[in-house]
C-alpha cells in the first residue's frame, strides 16, 4: 500500500494559561493520517479532542490557549511555524472544518449561496459569476434540492440538516486535503444524523481526502472511521482500527465507554453501565495514570507512574500498565461485577 501521509501530529501540546495556572488541554498527542484515511477522535467533554482540531487549524487565538510544543506536519510543512497569513491560505483551501452547531455557524445576514461563493473567491481566482456557479454545484453535491433557489435564501429559511449540508458545502468548496468534522451531528435529529454522516463519508471517498471525525459518540466512529484514537484528559489512551477497538478494547476506559452504550441485547430494565467517578480536574491531574482513580483494575503502579503509550502489535497502541505487563483482556462482564451493577 502506498503511504501518502497528509497529516502527522507529533507530541502536540496545547495549554491554556489561566489565572489558576497552566491547563494542559492537549498533552503529548501524536498520530498520522494518510490520504483517503479517516481517523476518529473520541473522548468525553474536556478530553482535548476539540482543542486538538483547533490546534491543527491554528484557531486558538481569541482564547488563552497556545501550542506549547510538538509539530503538526501537513503535506510536509510544519503548521506550528506558519504565520497567520499562511494559515489563512491553508484554511478552507487545504484544511477545512465542519462545526457542531449548524444553526449558528452561518452568517444570518448573507444568503447561503454568497457564503459559499465568498469562500471560493477567497482562495481561487474566480469572478463573481463563476464562483456563484461553483457554489450551486457544491449545493447540488451535498444533496440540496433546487440549489438555484436555495442559494438565494438566508440561513433562517433552512432547517438544521440543510444548514449542516451548507456547512459541508462551504468546507469542501475548495477540495481540501483534510476535512475536520467536530461533532458534526450532535445538534441534529437522529434521522438527519445518519444522512449527514453518510454524506460526509461519500464526499470523502469521492475526493480521496483525509478525514478527522471528532465525536463523543462511538456509533459515529463505527460508521465513518478507519482508525480511532481514544482521548482522556488530553492524552491518547488507545489507538486502534475501528474493528479492533470494538472487537477487543484494550484500555479500561475504552471498555467502560463501550459498556455504557445500550445495545440490542441490553435488558431495558437493567441500568446502563456507568464509569464511576469524574474526569479529574485539569489543574490537579493524578500523578500516575489519568484514569487510575476511576479504574476498577488499577494497582499501585497505576497510581504512581504514568504509563507510556505502547505498541501492542501493528498500529495498535495503548496507554495502560496492565497491558504492558501481561496483556490482560478486560471482559465487559468483569466490568459490571465490582459494584454489582
Amino acid at each position, binding site marked *: 500500500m502506498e503511504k501518502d501521509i497528509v497529516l502527522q501530529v507529533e507530541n502536540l501540546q496545547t495549554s491554556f494559561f489561566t489565572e489558576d495556572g497552566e491547563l494542559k488541554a492537549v498533552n503529548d498527542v501524536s498520530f498520522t493520517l494518510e490520504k483517503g484515511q479517516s481517523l476518529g477522535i473520541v473522548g468525553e467533554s474536556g478530553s482535548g479532542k476539540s482543542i486538538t482540531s483547533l490546534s491543527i*487549524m491554528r*484557531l486558538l487565538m*481569541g482564547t488563552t490557549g497556545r501550542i506549547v510544543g510538538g509539530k503538526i506536519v501537513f503535506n510536509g510543512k510544519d503548521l506550528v511555524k506558519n504565520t497567520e*497569513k499562511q*494559515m*489563512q*491560505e*491553508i*484554511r*478552507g*483551501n487545504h484544511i*477545512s*472544518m465542519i*462545526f457542531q*452547531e449548524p444553526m*449558528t*455557524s*452561518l*452568517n*444570518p*445576514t*448573507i444568503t447561503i449561496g454568497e457564503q459559499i461563493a*465568498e*469562500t471560493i473567491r*477567497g*482562495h481561487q481566482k474566480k469572478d463573481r459569476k463563476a464562483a456563484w456557479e461553483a457554489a450551486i454545484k457544491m449545493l447540488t453535491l451535498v444533496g440540496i434540492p433546487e440549489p438555484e433557489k436555495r442559494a438565494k435564501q438566508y440561513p433562517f429559511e433552512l432547517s438544521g440538516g440543510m444548514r449542516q449540508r451548507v*456547512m459541508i458545502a*462551504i*468546507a469542501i*468548496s475548495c477540495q481540501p486535503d483534510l476535512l475536520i468534522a467536530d461533532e458534526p451531528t450532535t445538534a441534529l435529529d437522529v434521522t438527519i444524523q445518519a444522512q449527514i454522516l453518510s454524506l460526509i463519508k461519500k464526499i470523502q471517498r469521492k475526493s480521496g481526502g483525509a478525514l478527522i471525525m471528532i465525536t463523543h459518540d462511538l456509533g459515529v466512529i463505527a460508521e465513518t472511521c478507519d482508525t480511532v484514537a481514544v482521548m482522556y484528559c488530553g492524552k491518547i489512551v488507545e489507538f486502534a482500527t475501528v474493528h479492533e477497538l470494538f472487537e477487543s478494547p484494550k484500555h479500561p476506559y475504552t471498555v467502560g465507554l463501550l459498556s455504557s452504550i445500550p445495545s440490542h441485547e441490553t435488558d431495558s430494565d437493567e441500568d446502563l453501565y456507568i464509569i464511576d467517578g469524574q474526569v479529574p480536574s485539569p489543574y490537579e491531574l493524578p500523578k500516575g495514570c489519568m484514569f487510575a482513580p476511576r479504574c476498577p483494575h488499577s494497582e499501585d503502579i497505576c497510581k504512581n507512574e504514568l504509563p507510556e503509550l505502547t505498541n501492542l502489535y501493528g498500529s495498535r497502541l495503548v496507554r495502560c500498565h496492565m497491558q504492558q505487563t501481561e496483556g490482560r483482556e478486560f471482559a465487559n462482564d468483569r466490568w459490571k461485577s465490582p459494584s454489582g451493577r
Partner: protein
Amino acid sequence: MSVSTKRKLKKIFKNRQLTLGGVIVILFILLAIFAPLIAPFDPLEQSMQRRLQAPSGEHIMGTDNLGRDVFSRIVYGTRVSLVVGIASTLMGGIVGVFFGVIAGYYGKAVDTVIMRATDILLAFPGILLALAIVAILGSGTEVVIIAVAVWAVPSFARIVRGSTLAVKKLEYIDAIRAVGAGDFRIIFLHILPNVLSPIIVQATLNVGGAIVSAAVLSFLGVGTQAPTPEWGSMVSTGRQFMLENPHLVLFPGLAIFLLVVGINLFGDGLRDHLEPKKTK
C-alpha cells in the same frame, strides 16, 4: 403586493411612534426639498415697511425686525438643520463605527486605547467641546457639522464596540475563520452587517441631537452665519423683540421642537421595530 410585504407594512403602521415620527420627518424633508415652491417670499428679502408684523393672512407667521417673512425663513431653515443633522451624523457615525468595530474586534490594547479616548471625549460637555472646535476652526455651517460630528463619535464607537463584542463570539465567525477568512473580510463582511440595526437606531436618534446642538451653536452666534436662515439664530435675534413680538421666537422654537420630537419618535419606533426583544 405580496402577503409578506403587506404583513410587514401592517407591522410598521401598527407601531404608532414609528408612523407618527416618520410622517413628521417626511413632511420636514419635503419642506426642505420644495422650499422654493412652498415659501411665499424670498427669505432674505428685507422691507422696512413690513417690520415686526404680527401673524396675518399674508404673513402667516409674521415678519421679523428686518421685515423678512418668518414662515419663508423657517421653510428654508429646514434645509440647514437637516443638512447639518444628517451630514454630522454621517461623518461622526462613520468614524465612530470604524473605531468601535476595531476596538471590539481586536480587543486588548487597541480596545483600551480607543475606549479611553472616547471616555475623554465624553467627559467634555458636548457644547463645550463644540465651542472649542469652533474656536479653533472658526464659525460657519461647515464647522458646525464637524463640531457636532466629533461629539457624535464616542457614542457610535461605544454602541458598535458592544455589539461587535457580542457578534465576534458567535460561532459563525469561527466558522468563517476556519475557511480562511482574514480580519478585514470578517470585520466588514460578517460583523458590520450584523451590528447594523443598533447603528441605524443610534444614527436616527443622533440626527435629532445634532440638530439641537447646531441650533444652540447658532443661537450662541458661532454657528451658521447671517443672513442664512437658521432656526437657532432666528430664536437668537427674535429674543430681543420677544416681549412685543413673541412669534419671532415661538415659531422657530416650535420648528426645532417638532422636527426633533419627530426624529426621536421615529428613532424610538425604529428601535422597537428592529429590536423588539429589548422592549418586551
